[in-house]
């Protein structure tokens, strides 16, 4: 058995601020709420923290002329496959990946990583969900080929994946709609979820199209809120309240790192899934809950197949009717409602929090019985990260 570095790290604590469509508090204060909650949840004090990370990478240069060739475009030009990257907004596509490296190598003992969104308020202030990249006067890097032709949102950029997938495998909206419908039922049991009223398949099918075949209920819901995660060195576990092990994690880019140039849009994230399974003796059948990134319904579909919960092209049949992915099903999916109903906390932060709570038995009315292994994934496509967490 190899000494995978992630085994030397644990997720010590998770914490969240209030979460809502619009909150009248600054992102800064929400962040402090989440961090203090996470540190308390870990059984630590603020003085124990010696590492800090913001994810995805934030900040911007205050001087013009910092060239910064886009990392994905450089990877594309060099035609590389990468299993580690740094410097792109989504980085390794898992919020705890970098912090786990830090504690595994002794660079820090207890790292806080946080993600704060005020997208609910931003949408309200703009009179609607703003166009992607509209904060910039020009579309640079990969967006130069998308925004000028009217692909003005991530919806437009991901919709062709859904169209191609459904075309290749004969999967229908009537099948995939069971993902948002079932997740809404989970959200009804989560007091922190944003949308808790029942959603029927008929309501899903009748909802307005945003960018075909993606309809309103295929899109996650912008919210205000903050999430913090404490990642600690595994040898500090005796001092932690309820640490969760990182069994395996990976994030591989083996295709063109571009939303429009990805070669096979019917098959996404498979290299990341394969790399993750290489690092563990566990198998897909061992997973008790799946917290799979669902910025859009199709992203959860990618992960169901990429992690081997069903075969390629089989996710439609797998989720149809909702029984398999329900809380009492063989693979409970996004047990907190996911981003589709729980709120777009982004970058798998909400998914990680839920995995930790399910593993600890702290998920309240939505607790799944006997959870020992949880899968967590982020994004999909080329920005793909996947992990297995265990007790």
């Amino acid at each position, binding site marked *: 058995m190899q000494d995978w570095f992630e085994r030397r790290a644990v997720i010590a604590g998770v914490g969240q601020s209030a979460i809502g469509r619009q909150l009248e508090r600054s992102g800064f204060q929400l962040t402090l709420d989440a961090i203090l909650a996470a540190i308390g949840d870990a059984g630590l004090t603020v003085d124990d923290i010696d590492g800090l990370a913001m994810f995805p990478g934030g900040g911007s240069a205050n001087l013009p002329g910092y060239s910064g060739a886009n990392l994905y*475009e450089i990877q594309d030009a060099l035609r590389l496959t990468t299993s580690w990257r740094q410097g792109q907004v989504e980085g390794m596509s898992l919020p705890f990946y970098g912090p786990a490296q830090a504690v595994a190598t002794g660079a820090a003992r207890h790292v806080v990583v946080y993600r704060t969104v005020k997208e609910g308020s931003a949408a309200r202030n703009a009179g609607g969900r703003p166009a*992607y*990249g509209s904060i910039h006067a020009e*579309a640079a890097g990969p967006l*130069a080929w998308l*925004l000028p032709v009217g692909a003005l949102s991530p919806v437009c950029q991901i919709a*062709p994946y859904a169209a191609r997938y459904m*075309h290749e495998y004969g999967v229908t909206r009537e099948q995939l709609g069971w993902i948002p419908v079932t997740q809404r039922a989970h959200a009804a049991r989560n007091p922190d979820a944003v949308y808790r009223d029942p959603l029927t398949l008929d309501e899903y099918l009748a909802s307005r199209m945003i*960018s*075909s075949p993606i309809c309103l209920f295929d899109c996650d819901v912008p919210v205000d809120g903050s999430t913090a995660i404490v990642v600690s060195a595994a040898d500090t576990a005796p001092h932690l309240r309820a640490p969760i092990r990182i069994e395996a994690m990976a994030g591989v880019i083996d295709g063109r790192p571009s939303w429009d140039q990805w070669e096979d849009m019917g098959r996404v994230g498979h290299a990341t899934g394969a790399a993750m399974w290489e690092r563990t003796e566990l198998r897909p059948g061992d997973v008790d809950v799946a917290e799979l990134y669902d910025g859009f319904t199709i992203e959860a579909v990618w992960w169901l197949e990429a992690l081997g919960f069903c075969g390629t092209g089989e996710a439609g049949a797998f989720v149809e009717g909702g029984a398999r992915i329900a809380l009492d099903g063989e693979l409970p999916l996004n047990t907190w409602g996911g981003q589709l109903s729980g709120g777009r906390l982004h970058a798998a932060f909400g998914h990680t929090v839920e995995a930790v709570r399910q593993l600890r038995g702290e998920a309240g009315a939505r607790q799944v019985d006997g959870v020992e292994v949880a899968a967590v994934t982020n994004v999909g496509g080329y920005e793909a990260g996947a992990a297995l967490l265990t007790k």
Partner: protein
Amino acid sequence: MNSAVGTPPAVTEETAAFWAAAKEGRLVVERCSVCGAESFPPRGMCRTCRARAMVPVEITSRGRVYSLTVNYQRWLPDLDVPYAIVLVEFPDHPGVRVVGRLRGCDPEHATIGMDVDVGFEPGPGGFAVPSFVAVASPHSQRASE
């Protein structure tokens, strides 16, 4: 349909030739003068043999829709909707896929696999942007949903 609403592209050393040709209604991609492979978007390096000897080559042949979406959401105040966005590949130019708008058919009649001709129309900021033209087909059907 007003395709000029939106954000113009940033033009770089790598992409200047594409946007200049676009204004003339020509679709230009990169061709490696060492191994002959073609690639898009332009990187100034061959994605097949990694030679840094790329020259512009024009595509005039018919393309085929790899995938598409019809956008219904008014992301910007003056945006006319709906419109189809197509990802087009070229049987005669392996390795090249170009994103553009679609003209010449009802957007809801666009399908994966349909044939399109190269074209451009006025885009944001005075740029000409790819706008493929549907080739009339008696078998066109609604896009898969």
